């Protein structure tokens, strides 16, 4: 087989991936690893998954040609409208898949970590849909900066548990969720929210999210006569929305991949979340990947104005895209991202999540040709971020 940027049978993307987990998680991870492909390929599962994506989530999401934006930047810009998904971001594609899997594994209790709260809301949503108990771990800082999403989780009947250790953001919420799973290995399934964690999570989540890219191929074929854009561009926190968009293009090197990371207050300020530039190889949350860490391997507290990008690691798929140079990595600071939140609102009537805003800022960083076809993953809507926007711009 020729070179692939997808996962291999051992759970690695090049040098990255694997499952570096305490033995107490082994049985659960092993159960997943041995069953996920089989379950997910069952016809009944596929039908249920696709029906829910269609009827409940509202897929296919549009591939919207952004006329004013394209005109302003003199290139062809498409937006994959994951912001229109039920609950407001791509995250639900994955939670729908995992809840169906969890049911088939006989689990009756769901846990999840969340940063921006989008994955927490998406998890609480599918748990309500299925009538399953749900506990969400969320960093104490994120609880206060993403209040609307906390409210939504509570409306949906989930219990939101604050993670009060470390930086009190996504990484710590993830630690807490893992601890919960270790304590509750029998009845509980852990729905990880991005393409991170031990194998098979990165691959499993990427597969559930790959619907994004698969739809783009189909949609682009209709408008541009080809399935292949020149660029696919997405913000990268853990990397799930990016993985979803890139998935069918991974091994097609005619399609250029751009990953956009959060520079926070700036790469050199010590207040950043630009993992590819600042990170080194190591182990985080059970996966060998790039992560931000001190010289002696302590995980660094990251910083970004967007809670969903405020993670010191990155999925192993993306670590490999970086190392192999298959993907171009661009980092965007808080200010640039915030301004793009306003730009997109004013130019296209779409208020993006701050995570998503980062992706669009690439337009000011890189020159594209008039005929280039760019597909941006418009990963989520900005409703959860209104307070931040309003404060920032004194609107």
């Amino acid at each position, binding site marked *: 087989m020729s070179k692939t940027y997808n996962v291999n049978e051992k759970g690695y993307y090049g040098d990255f991936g694997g499952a570096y*987990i*305490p033995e107490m998680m082994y049985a659960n991870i092993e159960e997943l690893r041995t069953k996920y492909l089989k379950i997910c390929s069952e016809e009944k599962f596929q039908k249920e998954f696709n029906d829910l994506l269609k009827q409940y989530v509202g897929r296919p999401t549009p591939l919207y040609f952004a006329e004013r934006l394209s005109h302003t930047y003199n290139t062809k810009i498409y937006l994959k409208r994951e912001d229109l998904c039920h609950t407001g971001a791509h995250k639900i594609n994955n939670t729908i898949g995992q809840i169906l899997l969890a049911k088939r594994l006989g689990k009756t209790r769901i846990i999840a970590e969340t940063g921006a709260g989008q994955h927490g809301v998406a998890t609480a949503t599918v748990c309500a849909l299925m009538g399953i108990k749900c506990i969400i771990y969320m960093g104490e800082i994120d609880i206060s900066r993403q209040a609307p999403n906390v409210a939504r989780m509570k409306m949906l009947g989930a219990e939101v548990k604050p993670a009060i250790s470390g930086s009190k953001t996504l990484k710590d919420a993830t630690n807490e969720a893992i601890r919960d799973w270790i304590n509750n290995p029998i009845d509980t399934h852990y729905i990880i929210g991005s393409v991170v964690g031990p194998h098979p999570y990165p691959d499993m989540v990427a597969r559930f999210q790959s619907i994004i890219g698969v739809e783009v191929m189909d949609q682009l074929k209709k408008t541009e006569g080809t399935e292949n854009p020149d660029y696919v561009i997405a913000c990268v926190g853990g990397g799930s929305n990016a993985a979803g968009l890139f998935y069918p293009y991974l091994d097609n090197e005619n399609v250029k991949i751009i990953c956009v990371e959060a520079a926070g207050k700036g790469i050199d300020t010590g207040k950043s979340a630009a993992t590819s530039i600042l990170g080194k190889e*190591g182990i985080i949350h059970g996966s060998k990947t790039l992560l931000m*860490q001190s010289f002696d391997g*302590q995980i660094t507290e990251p910083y970004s104005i967007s809670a969903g990008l405020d993670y010191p690691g990155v999925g192993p798929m993306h670590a490999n895209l970086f190392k192999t140079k298959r993907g171009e990595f661009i980092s965007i600071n808080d200010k640039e991202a915030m301004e793009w939140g306003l730009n997109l609102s004013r130019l296209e009537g779409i208020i993006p999540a701050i995570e998503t805003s980062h992706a669009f800022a690439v337009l000011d960083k890189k020159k594209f040709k008039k005929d280039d076809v760019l597909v941006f993953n418009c990963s989520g809507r900005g409703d959860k971020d209104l307070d931040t926007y309003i404060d920032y711009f004194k609107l």
Partner: protein
Amino acid sequence: MNRINKILEEKNNILSIYFTAGFPEIEDTEKIILKLSECDVDMVEIGLPFSDPLADGPTIQESSTIALNNGMNTKKLFIQLKNIRKKTNIPLIIMGYFNPILQFGIENFCEECELAGIDGLIIPDLPVDVFKENYQSLFNKHKLLNMFLISPQTSDERIRFIDKVSNGFIYMVSSFSITGAVNSFGKNQIDYFKRINKMNLKSKLLIGFGISNKDTFNDAVSYSKGAIIGSAFIKFLKTNKIENIKNFIDQIRG
């Protein structure tokens, strides 16, 4: 023969104590180890503090944070340990997460362990399979035992595999519980201890997680070679002087 294996052969009712290096104060590592050696303690597990100890509970996480804030790191720990080894012959185990070890350089790390007279390692997030494939010969070269964990969820087949790879003791996680003290074991735990005992493994078993007092210690050792106490000891250190460690040990051995 490795000090750990020696103890495992010679003794029953082994008491192994875990503490976090650099806690409560950075220079306490030596004082604590020497004090433990003086008491009726058979083995010491030295926690190399980590920012994200996901297999541990809040007590150990907190002690790790304090130790890191105190300036503890891998290099510093080895300097301390080299001094300590001159003063005691007690078996010493480093318990640390894989990432700090990787960053130190795993060969480097094993060399330093050997130089410092470390007898074994517990690396909770280094799975046995990865260990066997990549690191076993390196550990052997530096005369380091690697201890694996098993939990009630671990299948018999996997236990047998672990037993085969293992050359020290098997760390039997008592319950579905990350470290943290409990008052007594339940029926599920006892059944699990019995089940493992019936397997007649070649490796000796030590039970850890949740052991906090005489009762749980005695229960544990009636199904194993010995037991490991961590959180309860850390809690003790938070409010007691190092000189008084004997009180803690006596109360367990009692």
